């Protein structure tokens, strides 16, 4: 699997938050993507939009509840159409299946359209180990492949790069003269990739949806690279997660309405490709072979967990990233793996292990903006809470990861709050402490205008880095109540 750097979230986010160029890039997700999404919803009417969301959610609930049935049906129908279905339990197995395919079919060059799952599996290095040259053909993916990075955003993987950086990258890696005109950059990529499309013996794609009833793989793109990758080479391999299956083409309709609008505000993407099996006898072109690799890689564990199953409804539109105030501050790479943002904070710990990624579910103010925009109404904050519960209290020690300090604080807090007498006593103690400190020569507080400006004390010092803190007042509300309010106005 792709390198997992999820443990570095705190450090990585502290660095990225100060990066002025990322600040500029991230402003686009709010003013660009999210504004476009809102406009698209206003156009269809928020009421109708909510009906679509409900319908989409119903379809996802149903499909995942009956996943075994629909995977069977899908397999039957892909096979009937002349394709082959392979199921992979984990990344190693998926990459093995791919390796065997390229070995037995003597494949040297592969073109790939965008696939988050292949990032998750580290498919490219696995193919390279087999002597295959793999070319990402989505422009954003192509850029990050050249830069040897992971996607910064679900929908716009190279969002963080300026055109100047891309121009420099192309100069360094493709040996072309520096030109930072965006059209020229796109043309340069097109030129480099067109040749690969014609040479490739293998085209790899992800899937946005798999339609069980017809055995169809659906991809939606804006660049046409998906269609070239899946039709020009002699073999097409689709690789995707098992949660992508939906029952019928009729069910697909609502997702085709929701996904582009949520992702980029488009009514529909430039290309919607529906691929059923390899080329037929009377087709003029298309691949000779079609394979579909369906990957589990931790998903069945999420499916079995009622607290996390909902995360499998995700259609990877990226709307929750665009609205998330944390993502807007720290960007995609701080999350340390393939899936960033609010949904990444759930999917990543579920797939790589909670202990490995324990910061991610904590790094949220639980504001709930993600849930509000999600086209399938996924209750992201609730799942973050459930992951926090596992961190703190899971009976499974491999999940329990809360440190000693939080455990002790929680214990102390509970004890004090269980007893009104203790609560009163601790307020008095706090007041006394505050007064003692005020009288001391080496005062751990500095004050201004009745507010504490700097507290050189554990935890509190973290608050006062950039915020003033109110002092503990002489009386609590309950003191005032007893004295003045109890007897009525």
């Amino acid at each position, binding site marked *: 699997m792709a390198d997992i750097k999820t443990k570095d979230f705190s450090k990585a*986010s502290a660095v990225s*938050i100060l990066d002025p160029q990322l600040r500029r890039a991230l402003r686009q997700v709010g003013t660009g993507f999210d504004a476009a999404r809102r406009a698209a919803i206003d156009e269809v009417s928020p009421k109708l939009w909510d009906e679509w969301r409900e319908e989409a959610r119903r379809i996802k609930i149903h499909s995942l509840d009956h996943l*075994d049935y629909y*995977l*069977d049906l899908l397999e039957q129908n892909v096979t009937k159409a002349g394709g*082959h279905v*392979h*199921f*992979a*339990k984990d990344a190693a*197995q998926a990459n093995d*299946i791919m390796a*065997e395919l390229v070995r*037995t*079919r003597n494949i040297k060059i592969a073109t790939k359209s965008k696939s988050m799952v292949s990032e998750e599996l580290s498919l490219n290095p696995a193919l390279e180990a087999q002597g295959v040259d793999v070319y990402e053909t989505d422009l954003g993916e192509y850029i990050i492949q050249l830069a040897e990075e992971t996607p910064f955003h679900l929908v716009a993987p190279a969002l963080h790069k300026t055109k100047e950086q891309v121009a420099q990258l192309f100069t360094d890696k493709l040996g072309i003269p520096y030109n930072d005109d965006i059209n020229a950059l796109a043309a340069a990529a097109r030129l480099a990739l067109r040749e690969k499309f014609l040479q490739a013996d293998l085209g790899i794609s992800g899937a946005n949806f798999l339609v069980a009833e017809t055995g169809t793989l659906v991809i939606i793109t804006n660049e046409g690279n998906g269609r070239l990758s899946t039709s020009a080479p002699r073999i097409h391999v689709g690789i995707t997660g*098992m949660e992508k299956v939906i029952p019928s083409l009729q069910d697909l309709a609502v997702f085709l309405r929701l996904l582009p609008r949520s992702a980029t505000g488009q009514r529909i993407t430039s290309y919607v490709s529906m691929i059923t099996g390899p080329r037929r006898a009377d087709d003029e072109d298309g691949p000779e*072979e079609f394979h579909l690799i369906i990957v589990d890689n931790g998903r*069945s*564990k999420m*499916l*079995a967990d*009622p607290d996390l199953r909902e995360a499998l409804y995700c259609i990877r539109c990226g709307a929750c990233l665009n609205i998330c*105030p944390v993502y807007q*501050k720290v960007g995609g790479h701080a999350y340390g793996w393939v899936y960033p943002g609010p949904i990444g904070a759930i999917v990543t710990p579920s797939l790589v292990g909670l202990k490995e990624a324990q910061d991610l579910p*904590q*790094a*949220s*103010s*639980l*504001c*709930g*903006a993600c849930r509000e925009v999600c086209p399938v109404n996924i*209750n992201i904050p609730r799942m973050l*809470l459930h992951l*926090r*519960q596992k961190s*703190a*209290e899971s009976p499974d020690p491999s999940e329990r990861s*809360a440190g000693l300090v939080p455990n002790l604080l*929680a214990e102390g*807090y*509970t004890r004090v*709050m*269980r*007893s*009104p007498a203790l609560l009163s006593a601790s307020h008095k103690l706090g007041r006394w402490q505050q007064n003692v400190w005020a009288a001391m020569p080496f005062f751990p507080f500095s004050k201004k205008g009745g*507010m504490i*400006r700097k507290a050189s004390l554990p935890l509190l010092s973290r*608050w006062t*880095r*950039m*915020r*003033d803190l*109110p002092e*503990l*007042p002489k009386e609590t*509300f309950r003191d005032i109540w007893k004295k*003045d*309010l109890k007897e*009525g106005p």
Partner: protein
Amino acid sequence: MPGRIRAISWSQILSPVAASNTTQSPLRQSRLPRSCLSANLTPADPAQPGERLSSNSPPKADLFVTCIIDQLYPQVGVSVVRVLRRLGVDLSFQEDQTCCGQPLYNAGYSKKARTLARRVLDTFEDSEYVVVPSGSCAAMMRVFYLDLFRDDPAMLKQAELLSSKVYEFSQFLTSVLGAEDTGSTYSGTATYHPSCHLLREMKVRDEPQSLLRSVSGLELTDLPGAETCCGFGGAFSIKFPHISEGMLADKVENVVSTGADTLVSCDMGCLMQIGGGLSRQDSEIKVRHLAQVLDQDHSSNS
């Protein structure tokens, strides 16, 4: 087809699930997954506006004051009491109340949160209404208790009962008392920060602003980026101070840009955060809980 790719079936990839279950894959059993449906977590409908107005006896309500108001901002609690009494509410305060358990619940300590939640359920068992001057604590009692006790049918029943009685302060004023104009007066320009839980869990969007608009002498200006979180998030503000501060900086910038002299909200947590940020910049902008703004009535002014 050429080549021999190892054939496995879906039932093999799903084996981790099947293994945890001896007879049947849980796939086939879980037609109605427990908590992935939010339906069972939808709180009871708020009372219809004006529902109480027709009744002759004054509404009886208990105040849940919240820890932060009790311990740090007692004057806000005093204003809450005065406004509610002025509007004819028969208000009591159970003196042995403590915390709703939200800080523990948010940190994942749900067992400990249940310990505190049980106290709350007992304390307010006989209340007619429970008024909470915080969207966040109100959401805890109205919405999250249902999640907290989802595996305990007996407690869940009690939690559901409480859920139907819990109202955030502005929500209580508008939905239960049917108040449109509280007869309050305030001189200044104010802007309103909607707290996230009030907005998205309690679904209280317009009520506080319509109350503010009724205050004579108060001019309300729009806050840009109002619905973006201020970055408080309880322990989040201490665990990830750099992120919380980044969010705060945006909020402070937006508040300052309005030119308002008062920032109003319904959650003292947010106001401690935004107020702390404003104070650090030596800003003159005052931060006020909605109740404090509504506290001054025409008579006390004249």
